[in-house]
């Protein structure tokens, strides 16, 4: 089943889905598994598996350090794909590859698509790959039946939203604010207005991310967005509170 129908199906029983995030190999693949187990238990619907990159220029400090530490401990792209395979087989949520374009570019776009697909991934998020640079990758993805996730942002003009909307598939990642991952966003009318603006240009489901860290944030989005994307907040909790902390976090978040 493709990403979009998966989302549609899940949304029949929930008013908003949750997408979570782990950085592959940080703190370790074992801990990643524990985190994912907790996320699955809590009913998380989608997970981004970030492939660590040496130049994570769109990430905030916590993820930057996670990328760095993961690479330092020897994480390879092969390991990430194997992990993806394991995870997508074991858990009910759907898995997306998240990372930087160079990871895909270096192995070749065709190989990249094939490997995501083979590992059970339903799509990928490459924040430094603009649509101007991705027609071929999108074509290959479509052939393979996986989805390239398009990002829409507060600085995107209507004209450009139309362009982005035209090629968006699976889901759209609405970036709630300027900046990098990790800092808090005030979830309010601005964000909802942005989601509405984006909806004018596409029918695919809307995920909202960047700075979501509480049930209150999700409540704001409920009825407006389809998916709440939780990134840094979860990693922070894991680092500070371990398994029980994370369990409580997701329990509260998704209550």
């Amino acid at each position, binding site marked *: 089943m493709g990403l979009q129908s998966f989302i549609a199906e899940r949304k029949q029983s929930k008013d908003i889905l949750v997408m979570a995030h782990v950085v592959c190999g940080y703190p370790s693949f074992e801990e990643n598994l524990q985190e994912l187990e907790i996320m699955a238990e809590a009913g998380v619907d989608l997970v981004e598996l970030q492939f660590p*990159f040496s*130049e994570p220029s769109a990430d905030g400090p916590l993820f930057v350090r996670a990328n760095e530490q993961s690479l330092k401990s020897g994480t390879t792209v092969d390991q990430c794909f194997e992990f993806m395979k394991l995870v997508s087989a074991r858990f009910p949520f759907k898995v997306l590859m998240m990372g930087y374009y160079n*990871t895909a570019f270096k192995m070749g776009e065709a190989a990249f698509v094939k490997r995501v697909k083979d590992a059970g991934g339903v799509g990928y998020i490459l924040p430094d790959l603009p649509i101007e640079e991705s027609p071929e990758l999108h074509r290959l993805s479509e052939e393979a039946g996986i989805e390239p996730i398009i990002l829409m942002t507060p600085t995107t003009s209507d004209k450009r939203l139309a362009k982005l909307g035209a090629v968006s598939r699976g889901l759209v990642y609405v970036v709630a604010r300027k*900046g*990098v991952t990790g800092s808090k966003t005030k979830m309010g009318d601005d964000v909802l207005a942005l989601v509405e603006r984006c909806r004018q240009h596409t029918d695919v489901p809307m995920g909202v991310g960047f700075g979501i860290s509480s049930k209150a944030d999700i409540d704001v989005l409920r009825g407006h967005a389809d998916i709440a994307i939780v990134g840094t907040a979860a990693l922070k909790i894991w680092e500070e509170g371990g398994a029980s902390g994370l369990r409580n976090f997701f329990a509260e978040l998704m209550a």
Partner: protein
Amino acid sequence: MDIFDFSEGREGYYGEYGGVFLPEILHATIEELLECFRECKADPKFWQEYVSLLQNYSGRPTPITHLENLSRKLGGAQIYVKRDDLNHTGSHKINNVMGQGLLCQRLGKSKVIAETGAGQHGFATATMAAKFGFECKIYMGAVDVARQRPNVFWMENLGAEVIAVEDGQKTLKDAVNECMRDWVTNMADTHYILGTACGPHPFPEMVSWFQSIIGLEAREQMLKQAGRLPDRVYACVGGGSNAMGIFQGFMNDDNVELIGSEGGGHGVGSYMHSSRLAYDDASVGVAQGYKTYFLQNDEGNMNETHSVAAGLDYIGVNPIFAHLHDQGKVRFEAATDIEVKEALKLTMRTEGLIPALESTHAFVTAIKEAPTMGKDQIILINQSGRGDKDIFTIADALDDAKWKSFIGGKADQYRGENN
């Protein structure tokens, strides 16, 4: 040949290199920048204003110096040097920075950010910001902050905030990443003054355009002073801005050979260098907003790089050079740390010039090749900066015992004051 005529290829691409690989959130910002740059480039008044700003503030045109002693000593080609070390703040970096300052004014932005490695670009940017009245933040790898304190001292005294970047290798490339992070947050009122001809379009073109003033001057000066064009032109290549600057003066002169000299560090096979094109260790990739040759592993993660010259110690090379290298239009060589030290000593003693360690890389290659050339041949070296502000690095590189004991004494004095 106009490498910046994109009418037959993709805008911002040089062969297969270049492009814009930025987060969607910067799309509008980079478009706005591109548009503003196109306006400036099309407006002869802008260039006039730029030239007169550099004349009145930075001392352009910088002269060409004939190195009679060194030429005689080497017994081959006549060596001329373009003296961009005489610029205000001590390097060619000021050219680009002043140009972007004017552009930033047009953009109506009040803040500037910049990455810096050796500190020269940061120093130039802080200077420009003081002159233009911009708020200024300089991102600099924590390792560089520690080893380039003199430049940090000046930047701070010029009113800039210097932020030590603690991520990654804590050097130049990490400072670039941190600039990107600042920019995606503050682009509304902030312009990113990229320091070399790298990064997403239009930076390679824009920085090259501002630096082309070097080559414009140099070509005219060579004709006037030497009576003809040089046979070869040498420049060091970090990101490639000073080299692009001087090479552009001779791009259409088929008989002028263009040679870029990269940081050979510990030499070929050492994997401790920053030669993207002269050695075979780099491959094509996409990072920091553009596609070019990077020193990276098979999975696309960047390798550690090294050069005695902090300003050459960088993973990527400007995409224009990647293309010109493919085309055979520019030849690339590397100069090792050891060769650089020897060439620096030679240049100081025979000519009274102190090229920056970066620029000395160009001297190394020129000094190797001059003796193989005829006495009637002419070579031109771009001295992109002066070395006297890098005293710590050079004293370290030359392992100067008296310097070390002076620093020990100074430290004792300071500790004494605190008691």
